[in-house]
């Protein structure tokens, strides 16, 4: 388990929206099951005093923090205000801002991440499904029924593809320590390297699955900096250059970050790369 344990109080920013309210309920259902604190407050400017899925709503994180104890935020606010919400979380002293929102302008993301760093606040996302440590805490929108507790860490740029691979792991009897969706945008807060560093300090995690995509070189950077046994899957081997494959990050720019050369670089570092998601459990069993 990394980033947060079950005792962490959660603030949901964008609590009164359809998505926010819906996922407050699911996160609290999970917290109840594992005996965790769960979501203690929602925040939506101008809607203070309302209640969202049984949780009190405040106008600002600062206002909420006067009443309750919280360590992390999960952000569902619309794209144009999400950068602001990350900065508000950091400024209020939260240690983690999990940003689910997609389509945030990249300059907003860059500014918010730089600001959060000044306040020692880690940002997961944006454009991500959040994270889940089975039996401990769920921050975000991952479907918890596919997960099981164990020793495998998972770091992924995707959402549903993560669920696919977690499902394969669970069916193969390989439980997970923490599964982190780091997000599909070109600029994200916590990268493969950052999460891997946390996994190295986590006694529960014995091996890590990296689920990458075309674009950039974050997967290789991560694999280079860790001593943990790592297996990888890279999506987008059939992606044409200069075309954005859904995720803004999944684009091959100027010949950089195409899947074939990414896979080759990883293999050269000694990282086994699966050619199909279904091969992951077999590889993990071998390297454990």
């Amino acid at each position, binding site marked *: 388990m990394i980033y947060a344990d079950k005792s962490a109080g959660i603030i949901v920013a964008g609590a009164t929206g359809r998505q926010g309210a819906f996922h407050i309920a699911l996160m609290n259902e999970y917290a109840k099951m594992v005996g965790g604190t769960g979501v203690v407050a929602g925040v939506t400017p101008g809607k203070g005093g309302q209640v969202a899925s049984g949780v009190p709503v405040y106008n600002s994180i600062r206002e909420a923090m006067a009443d309750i104890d919280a360590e992390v935020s999960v952000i569902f606010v619309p794209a*144009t205000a999400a950068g602001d919400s990350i900065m508000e979380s950091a400024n209020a002293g939260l240690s983690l801002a999990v940003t689910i929102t997609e389509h945030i302008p990249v300059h907003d993301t860059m500014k918010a991440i730089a600001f959060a760093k000044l306040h020692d606040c880690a940002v997961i996302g944006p454009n991500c499904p959040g994270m889940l440590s089975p039996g401990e805490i769920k921050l975000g929108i*991952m479907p918890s029924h596919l997960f099981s507790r164990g020793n495998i860490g998972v770091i992924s740029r995707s959402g549903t593809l993560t669920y696919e691979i977690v499902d394969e792991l669970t069916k193969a009897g390989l439980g997970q320590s923490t599964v982190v969706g780091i997000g*599909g945008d070109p600029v994200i807060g916590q*990268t493969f390297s950052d999460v891997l560093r946390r996994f190295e300090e986590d006694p529960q995690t014995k091996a890590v699955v990296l689920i990458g995509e075309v674009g950039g070189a*974050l997967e290789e950077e991560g694999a280079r900096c860790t001593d943990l046994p790592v297996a990888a899957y890279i999506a987008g*081997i059939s992606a044409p250059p200069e075309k*954005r494959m*859904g995720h803004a990050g999944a684009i091959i720019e100027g010949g950089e970050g195409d899947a074939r050369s990414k896979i080759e670089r990883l293999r050269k570092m000694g990282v086994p790369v699966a050619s199909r998601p279904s091969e992951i459990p077999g590889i993990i069993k071998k390297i454990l």
Partner: protein
Amino acid sequence: MKFLEHEAKSVFSDNGIPVPRGFLIHSADELAGNLEQLPPEFVLKAQVDVGGRGKAGGILMADRKNGVENAKALFGKSIKGVAVKEILAEERLEIQREYYASIAVDRSTKEALILFTEEGGVDIEILARERPSAIRRASIPLLMTEIPPFMLRDLLGEAPREAGRVLQSLYTAFCRKDAVLAEINPLVTTPAGLFAADAKLIVDDNALRRQGISCNRDMTDREREAERHGFSYVELEGNIGVIGNGAGLTMATLDLISFFKGKAANFLDVGGGADQERVMHAVRLVAGVPSVKVIIVNLLGGITRCDEVARGIIAAGISQEVIVRLAGTNEEEGRSLLNERGYRMLDSMEEAVRAAVEAVR
């Protein structure tokens, strides 16, 4: 979205970067009526978004005698498959020296990366590969409102001080326009001073609205239609239509198709909340691509309701075969709905992809 040269130059000029005198024309006649506004010798530059435009014949030298004729010839051409509809007619510069300057979003530092080299006018990618030390780099957090003096000194080396002002203005333009790339290649010195001889600007697609841009020109009509429904859509060259939820899963579906030696016709990510209506639109959109012989629908999600998805597929009422992989709630109901209508629903993504590849063989 990529800006054309003349659009990028006008943005740069608004931010204080000197650009050559010139104007945009839409026909050779338009040039004939305005010849006196240009110096005796000038250039005609096709406004098409293709790489290697000069080598492909998109840039012609001209003077007052042959200008109209050359413009006529250029308007009749297509450059690497793109028809010339606009030409930038511009003064010819007396180039003494060429530099390269750019500012781009850097994924790994999460900051803006400024590049400058005194060896401009060459292919920057080749220079970066062969002599990386010739390119000076600086990383600047976007919290900074301007480039600090030490950074400018480090970047410029022996280049004239005016180049520092250009870099400063380029940074301002980069920030104001939500750019992912702002590039001047080449930045040239002439007896009349420093000029941006060419200009490139790419604006973040997620910031188009606040930049006042309503329509993304980089998209095809079908991609735009897909966007209206909230789908991410890319057209490819095969015959297997692909619909998935989530970019990674959809990409992995495409990869599996090519693993089993099939060819995908498209990438379509329906996004979150795949309900009946959205699935129907997605299926119809993909079925409308003439080359599509079979469609694979691969949807996985905790909250996806399989019966809703099944109803969407049935409501689309298309002629092609649809192979479905669904995992979520109400799976059994979805399966029996689909089976009743003769659609195949399979349990794993690999089985479904294999079935789709076999169906087109």
